[in-house]
């Protein structure tokens, strides 16, 4: 009886020590769930979810303060992915935060730009290049389409344009929803004759 108690007690103490050591040694600094949520968000940093960026929104979701349907740039696919990750039911995008649209970028009308740098200060990803009283321009490949630069511009020289379709980002259409010009069964006669 005593042997059994002592053995079990010793085992418990040993395992307790190992667990205690592991808790300190392998301590996780941040909540991994936040990182996982942040990975699924589109990183537009637009703030339409009412949080100042994607990471704060991820933190809010993890803390239960925000719902998973507040991200218009991510749209249905992001909601689905978040629902899968968190084991919740997917729900439609909350229209209060905006509507999902195709990805856009902004361009600056360089003739009109006065070089005030206000848009540069607003851009969350440093995608606008320029200096005081010098013309500004958008680095298109870095622009996330958050549109945060548009309100501060005093001369309204920033325009939203859809991302340019090219061979690099072209997707084969599913049969049945072919685009004009990509019709597999296009008849060349018009072009030939």
């Amino acid at each position: 009886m005593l042997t059994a108690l002592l053995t079990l007690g010793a085992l418990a103490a040993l395992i307790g020590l190992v667990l205690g050591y592991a808790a300190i040694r392998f301590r996780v600094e941040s909540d991994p769930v936040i990182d996982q949520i942040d990975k699924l968000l589109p990183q537009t940093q637009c703030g339409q979810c009412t949080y100042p960026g994607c990471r704060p929104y991820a933190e809010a979701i993890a803390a239960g303060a925000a719902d998973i349907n507040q991200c218009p740039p991510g749209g249905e696919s992001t909601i689905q992915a978040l629902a899968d990750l968190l084991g919740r039911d997917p729900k439609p995008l909350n229209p209060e935060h905006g509507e999902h649209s195709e990805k856009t970028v902004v361009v600056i009308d360089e003739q009109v730009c006065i070089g005030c740098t206000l848009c540069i200060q607003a851009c969350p990803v440093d995608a606008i290049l320029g200096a005081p009283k010098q013309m500004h321009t958008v680095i298109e490949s870095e622009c996330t389409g958050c549109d945060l630069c548009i309100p501060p511009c005093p001369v309204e020289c920033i325009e939203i344009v859809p991302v340019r379709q090219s061979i690099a980002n072209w997707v084969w259409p599913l049969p049945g929803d072919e685009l004009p010009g990509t019709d597999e069964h296009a008849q060349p006669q018009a072009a030939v004759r």
Partner: protein
Amino acid sequence: MNHATDTDPHDRDVGDRFERLHRFHGGLVLPGQHEMSTSLPIKDAGVPPVLVVPLLQHIGETAECLVKEGDHVHKGQIIAAPSGSVSAPVHAPSSGTVVAVAERPFPHPSGFSFPSVVIETDGRDEWSEHTYTLPDYRQLSRVRLLDHIRAAGIVGLGGAGFPTQVKLSKGPSNRVDLLVINGVECEPYISCDNMLLQERAREVLEGVGILQHILQPRDCVIAIEADMREAEAAMRQAVSTAGDTGIKIVSVPERYPSGGERQLIKVLTGSEVPSQGFPSDIGIICQNVGTAAAVYRAVVNNRPLVSRIVTVTGAGVKQPRNLEVLIGTPFRYAIEACGGYSDDVDRLLMGGPMMGFAVNTDEIPVIKATNCILAVTRKEMPPPATALPCIRCSKCTEVCPADLLPQQLYWYARSGNLDAAQDYSLFDCIECGCCAYVCPSHIPLVQYYRHAKTEIWDAEKQKKASDIARDRHQSRQMRLEQIKRERAERLARKKREVSGAGDARDAKKAAIQAALERVRKKKEREGLVQKNVNNLTPEQAEKIREVDTRRQHKRPPGEH
């Protein structure tokens, strides 16, 4: 490979190895239609008035343009430099003047344009001066030859167009067990490799010799499809004339897609290339016969890749045949060189009927990857019937040469379940089209797979872009915080300095005060020295004494 392991390679005759061929799963025996374009010899299509040379003609990165509008270029002059490792330079296919560097129609299923160099030819077709001539390739190192092949802009001419030197330099530490020269032209209608072997067998053989010199493979085999008899005969003739080359010619039974790299390797060796891997992973390098001929021209004649053989065929062309076409020649010009369209032409395709894609204009140029221009009539290739629901007959599974489950892939691709499609090895699909060919419901299966593949690539690109955006946002946050912190620090320092200056003022004040004090004390002391005691009258002295005594009395005791 199976029986290669148990005997010493050097004791063994190369012939043993391919005595027994293997079979790949599935595949189809298709009506060849090759003979349509093999009755006439290869014709030089000549120099068209305008050449449109796209800056990307293969898998990989776009080349960087080196010329501008108004420049005069010679034939073979480099007009775009490679950028990145999987990239090939582009050369001017003929002499003339660059009239534009702009977007032009491009042979791609999307129908989009692509940046191209437009050259107005002068008809003289003058080669650029060579700065050096290459010595005999047997004297050259592997690295030097690879550099030369890269500089000549050679890409795989079988259709996919992967830069050749990248393929040849795969796994430099790995010994190359087998070099396969692919002359198995299995897709119906196409006959450019067939005609090349018939007419230029010696060039191909020399090219293979160069590839052998670079790779030092244990065995080398030229695989030719069984129905390409003249080509096989020409090749055998060339090999026997050349003497001991160590090259074996193997006739591969007709079965589409036996010319696919993985399928051919399976047929020849019985080994399978690992999923998502390369043939070099199992010690095999596969090169197209046209590529071998291009290597010969680059190394022996010092000519870059500026032209290729293209099969112009189909019942929609009056005189189907093979043409030697300059890169950048518009499809229309090539078709006119074959007598033009027949009256009942219906559709135009680049590539063969199984793997090619429809194009909606004949203004697009021939690129390095163009092996076939196919103009078909409605009779020979009727528009596909309306797709019906999948009935799970599993015919597609039976014919799939990659041993996949096409109907599962179809369901997942259609429903957008891309993860599941990848789990079912979507990326091992070679898009050969066998499944769609046999489908009794006429479902355009391959298009579903292509959709799913491009969708996955697009999602990956977006993922990468969002990772970059996250990094940029984080570094911006950090920078802003740092600026804020630095500003706060600067402010604090200033404040300290200001208050420090107050102390200094106090010290100064104190010093002044002290000095004043000293002066005052000194004055006092000096004031104490009685300057008015000299030359006193006796009455005055008497009075002072009296006062002093009084004072003495008044002072409390112990003061002095």
